[in-house]
């Protein structure tokens, strides 16, 4: 399903190479399958669970608030109960005492559910190889996207969200009145950005000097 955004003032000018009637139809009628429509809707309405563990949650909250505005990506409907949420952001350190609570909250979410793992602690324990910290939330939860940083910037979390949304948009859900497992829950893996961007990154020769603001 392809679509585009146009500015209101452009709405009466004809696109190049098209007559006015065809263009009007193109801009007002969407031809798609129900499956595609559903995938598109799900991609743009991920409801996150209002959940945070430590420092990373402050940056997650920054991503929600005015400057970064997660609503631009249709993921602003933060739910206070896991039962209404599609996605949980594990924002912060996963503590031994908190782990069973995290597990229960995850279990209370409805399928299909997604996990974004935010920050070094949740990814791997990070700098806290210490008795009270679980060395990564993937010791007990399936993680869809890992966002690196300590804490990651809000923009990094938003990028993680976009990657997850791309993946959700590619997944096709069963469209049927029969409510059962129809074996179509395979999800695609999010490509590892480190490998994808490696060539571009090592090509950088000039880095910004820390001596200038």
């Amino acid at each position, binding site marked *: 399903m392809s679509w585009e955004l146009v500015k209101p003032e452009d709405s009466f000018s004809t696109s190049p190479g098209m007559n006015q009637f065809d263009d009007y139809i193109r801009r007002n009628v969407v031809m798609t399958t129900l499956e595609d429509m559903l995938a598109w809707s799900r991609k743009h309405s991920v409801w996150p669970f209002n959940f945070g563990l430590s420092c990373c949650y402050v940056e997650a909250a920054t991503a929600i608030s005015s400057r970064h505005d997660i609503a631009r990506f249709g993921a602003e409907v933060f739910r206070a109960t896991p039962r209404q949420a599609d996605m949980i952001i594990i924002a912060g350190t996963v503590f031994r005492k908190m782990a*069973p609570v995290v597990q229960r909250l995850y279990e209370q979410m409805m399928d299909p559910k997604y996990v974004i793992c935010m920050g070094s602690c949740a990814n791997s324990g990070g700098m806290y190889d210490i008795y009270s910290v679980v060395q990564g939330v993937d010791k007990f939860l399936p993680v869809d996207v890992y966002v690196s940083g300590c804490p990651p910037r809000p923009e990094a979390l938003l990028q993680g969200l976009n990657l997850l949304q791309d993946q959700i948009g590619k997944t096709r859900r069963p469209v049927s009145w029969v409510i059962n497992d129809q074996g179509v829950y395979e999800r695609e893996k999010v490509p590892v950005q480190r490998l994808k961007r490696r060539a571009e990154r090592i090509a950088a020769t000039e880095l910004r000097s820390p*001596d200038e603001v």
Partner: protein
Amino acid sequence: MNSSTVTQVNESSLPTVIVNLYQRFGEASFVRQHTAEGMPTLWVGREKIMGVLKYLRDEHRPRYEMLLDVTAVDERTRIHREGQPAADFTVVYHPTSFSGNCDIRLKVALQMDDLHMPTAIGLWPSANWQEREIWDLFGIVFNGHPNLTRILCPPTWKGHPLRKDHPARATEMEPFTMSDEIQDREQEALRFNPEEWGLKRRSETSEFMFLNFGPNHPAAHGVIRFALQLDGEYVLDVVPDVGYHHRGAEKMAERQTWHTFIPYTDRIDYLGGVMNNLPYVLAVEKMAGIKVPQRVETIRVMLAEFFRICSHLLFFGTWAVDLGQLSPLFYAFVDREKAFNIIESICGARMHPGWFRIGGVAQDLPNGWDKLIREFVDYFPKRLAEYETLVMANSVIKERARGVGSMNTQDAFDWAMTGPALRATGLEWDYRKNRPYSGYENFEFEVPIAVNGDCYDRAAVRVEEMRQSCRIIKQCLNNMPSGPYKADHPLTTPPVKEKTKQDIETLINHFLSVSWGPVMDPTEVTQTIEATKGMNMYYLINDGGIGSYRTRIRTPSFIHIQAIPFLSRGLMLADFTTVVATTDFVMADVDR
């Protein structure tokens, strides 16, 4: 500008408090210990300690009104304990006097076969949680304590983590797994049992409801659980349950070097950023005898005050949300972003720069820093005025916050409340003013106070503090001294690079200094600062190694949470969130 000086121990004249204690209890009751910062330090027998504490609190002039800290040390692997009584474990009391502006440290030696102490709850109720913490982390029993249960570790935990024979790393222990059985067992262990806390399930007329507020709750400000005993909408009692955020920072300090522990301090009060570095590096500098250049002091003050503004803005926004106003949070976050932009352009990171160093800061201020800050100090006071109209002058907010969760100064002493909570009760006490550190004596600023000590006053004090912080930043901007950003001292870490390139000797010294960091004579030292949330104290014991033998981090949030039941009994459930918000804790600052 004058720099803060390291207090020299004067051998000839005894501090007055020691003279008084000798007269009252006899010199034979004590063993005196000398420390780097010159704080009076006495070893006392276990049978006499409560008498001494009671005397200091009630009869001594000046009175020691507050028990700032109680902690313990596992002494079993110490090398240098010359002149100190034999001990396997030591319990350390730290009463502080506001009227006399002084501190004293009292230590009690315990042997492995008899780890028992009398409880100090009868003197200061604030000792309750600190004694539970000591039991949890060291296994020392406090006789007479009403609820000597685990507080930071899960209730099912085996062992006492701060003992030297307990593993530090998760990777030294059995790998973590979560089978259904483990999950059920751990969840069952977390079940709240009112009888354990002496709470009744019903009165003659009604049956009480027990509500779990947390450990994940939108208005709980972090991973904390309050078990509320409710009679309808009224809060009868509250039992806070902490430890969901215990990151073992004090254990971590024992395996990091002096230098490599700095980034961990950032994450203690994670809204305080580099302000957390400050007491730690100041304490190490006291030990090393480093006097930093004035430029370093001023840069440190400037950044610390930026973080005070960031932290108070977060408090302000979330408090308004808790009272039903959503938009102030968005305004506050816009300003936080402005402050973070400046912090990032100076330090290279937003929340946890870890940018202070032993003997200096990581690098000099970048070109153009002053322009950014000038824009901010011109802009921010106007915004603050808007916020006051929007929130503080709002009649609904006034109605909801005035007279709610009040405490007086004596209550604040009993519960060891410091910072804005103490000042809201009317006591004009600010560590920056009363015992200046890092050059605060050179700045002009007011110490805002209030009268009623209620939720509204606590918030109002913080709003005014933001204005004063902005004033301090402006003075830093206009009077930034020139000079080096690192002290010219052999223990400055990392050392100045240019000095390495002279000959093989300087290169070797540089190599040792970078890999080990400073190595100093065994001693102990404390440094307190006025942090974002109250008095934050680092108590470091150096046994002559490349890192700390014991690091005690006295954080304001941990102590403040204890007072929440006291502040909320009898309130409506909706008012409880106001009390929680204005206590202004950060869970990492609570559980460390």
